[in-house]
């Protein structure tokens, strides 16, 4: 007879293997769904294994909680694709909530007999967990537009934030030296919770991809720390996989915005927003009607569409698909150039365009798209702004100077669908709009694309 503890460990080891395979299979869209199944199988095994644990005396609440969690999880798994960023932020909050609650309960169960090491990782666990809970809730609130999206900055903000974090660390050190000081513990968690809020206050929408990745990383690291506290290798592995994933994405995002990683780590986002707003001299722009835009598009051989968050806001992805169909039918080669930080989370645009049934091999990464830009007849920018701003290449005084962009200005003709000439969220003027080869298409993204599609299908002799 195999002892139950060995059986449980066996399920955990298989789960770890399945988790790693799960991420490995995600490397290609062809095998990606196997990854989900592997993850599900590993999860199920690990939970069944845990339920066999002999120390469990009461199954009633576990069962209730599992059912309740599943009931909450189903609608969260079925949100609209445009709501995926806020859903993701919310799930980071839930993950961190789980970790922080378990860490807190463990502290009160074990105090004062906590070794210095365990107390250190436990502090790390609940500080990271705590700031991730409130930080992610704030991020979700901003993304859902329940909270004002404008970044709020004040003088000495970084000083206040880092000071708070320092106090939390000092309390942690005191607890490590004497874990019996239970009265200090709530302060440590409380400060972490407040810090999470303060950290997100200066964040604007354009910084969200970086922030979500960073919170993802924190959630993973806090889970790994929990693994150290509970001496669970399974948790350490899952937590470090998640932490590594979030870390890689954060680095990608900060590179794509030309921010140093330390700049991102210390939450010093949003300072870009305050500079160079409204250098508003009236420069001439050329605009075009849907009819003219349709004529130019249908005469093109190669079209590059550059989507941004504006496409998501206008829910225009399905209309964009119709445009793609209409142009493809006329033999026009249509590709999509996806900037890493377009949208509100990593990969956001890809998911929306995939939802609209646009084949993924037409979705090009920035560098691949740029290498084709010179041969492109028309670059059509839909709801994107800063990621196409040539000032990032040419103007050392620009706040986004050095940020890699999609070089739409190198296409023969640039068309930009935009509501008005008002500067974007970041408040940075975009010289692209005043170029000789740029045509502004003023209007709502969805309606404008729709008008172009009507022109194309109507003028082409119908369906």
């Amino acid at each position, binding site marked *: 007879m195999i002892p139950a503890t060995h059986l449980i460990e066996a399920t955990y080891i298989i789960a770890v293997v399945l*988790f*790693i395979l799960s*991420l490995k299979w995600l*490397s290609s*869209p062809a095998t*990606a*769904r196997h*990854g*989900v199944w592997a993850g*599900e199988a590993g999860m199920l095994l*690990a939970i069944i294994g*845990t*339920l066999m*644990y002999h*120390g*469990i*005396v009461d199954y009633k609440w*576990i069962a209730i*909680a599992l059912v309740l*969690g*599943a009931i*909450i999880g*189903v609608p*969260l798994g079925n949100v609209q694709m445009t709501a*995926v960023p806020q859903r993701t932020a919310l*799930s980071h909050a*839930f*993950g961190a909530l*789980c*970790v922080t609650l*378990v860490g*807190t*309960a463990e502290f009160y169960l074990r105090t004062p007999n906590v070794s*210095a*090491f365990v107390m250190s990782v436990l502090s790390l666990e609940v500080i990271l967990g705590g700031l991730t809970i409130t930080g992610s809730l704030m991020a979700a609130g901003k993304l859902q537009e329940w909270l004002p999206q404008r970044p709020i900055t004040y003088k000495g903000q970084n000083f206040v934030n880092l000071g708070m974090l320092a106090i939390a660390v000092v309390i942690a050190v005191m607890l490590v030296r004497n874990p019996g000081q239970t009265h200090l513990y709530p302060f440590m968690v409380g400060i972490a919770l407040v810090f999470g809020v303060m950290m997100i206050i200066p964040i604007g929408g354009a910084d969200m991809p970086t922030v979500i990745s960073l919170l993802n990383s924190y959630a*993973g690291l806090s*889970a*790994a720390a*929990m*693994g*150290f506290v*509970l001496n669970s290798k*399974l*948790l350490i*592995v*899952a*937590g*470090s*996989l*998640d932490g*590594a994933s*979030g870390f890689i*994405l954060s680095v*990608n995002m900060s590179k794509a915005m030309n921010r140093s990683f330390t700049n991102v780590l210390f939450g010093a986002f949003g300072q870009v927003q305050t500079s160079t707003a409204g250098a508003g001299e009236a420069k001439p722009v050329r605009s075009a009607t849907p009819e003219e835009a349709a004529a130019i598009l249908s005469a093109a051989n190669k079209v590059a569409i550059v989507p941004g968050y504006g496409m998501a806001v206008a829910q225009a992805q399905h209309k964009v698909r119709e445009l793609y169909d209409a142009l493809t039918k006329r033999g026009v080669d249509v590709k999509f150039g996806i900037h890493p930080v377009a949208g509100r989370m*990593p990969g*956001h645009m*890809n*998911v929306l365009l995939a939802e609209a*049934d646009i*084949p993924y091999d037409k979705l090009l990464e920035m560098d691949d798209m740029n290498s084709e830009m010179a041969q492109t007849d028309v670059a059509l920018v839909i709801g994107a702004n800063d990621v196409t701003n040539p000032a990032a290449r040419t103007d050392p005084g620009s706040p986004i100077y050095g940020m890699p962009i999609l070089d739409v200005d190198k296409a023969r003709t640039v068309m930009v669908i935009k509501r008005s000439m008002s500067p974007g969220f970041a408040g940075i003027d975009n010289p692209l709009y005043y170029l000789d080869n740029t045509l502004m298409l003023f209007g709502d993204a969805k309606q404008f694309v729709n008008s172009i599609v009507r022109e194309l299908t109507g003028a082409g002799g119908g369906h």
Partner: protein
Amino acid sequence: MVTPDLISSLYVFILAAFIGFEVIRRVSPLLHTPLMSLTNALDAIAVVGAIILAGERKSNLALIFGTIAIVAATSNIVGGFIITDRMLKMFKSSRTQKP
């Protein structure tokens, strides 16, 4: 106070982090959103700690916190896997798509 347990945990952590970097670096940016929702679901394996905490029932606090923690983690597991699969189902290549 450096126990053999701790040392082996550190080894596991470091090796897992390396595997994580190597595996995740290969994930195409195309799939970065599903990557995040999938790792988030996997991260909710923290539920095993919560189950033991609630099940052992060593104190009322442990029971209450453990139960809430199970709810939070389970919603991430269920929601995370559902939405990841929904997203991945949508990604089609133009070769398989055209009838």
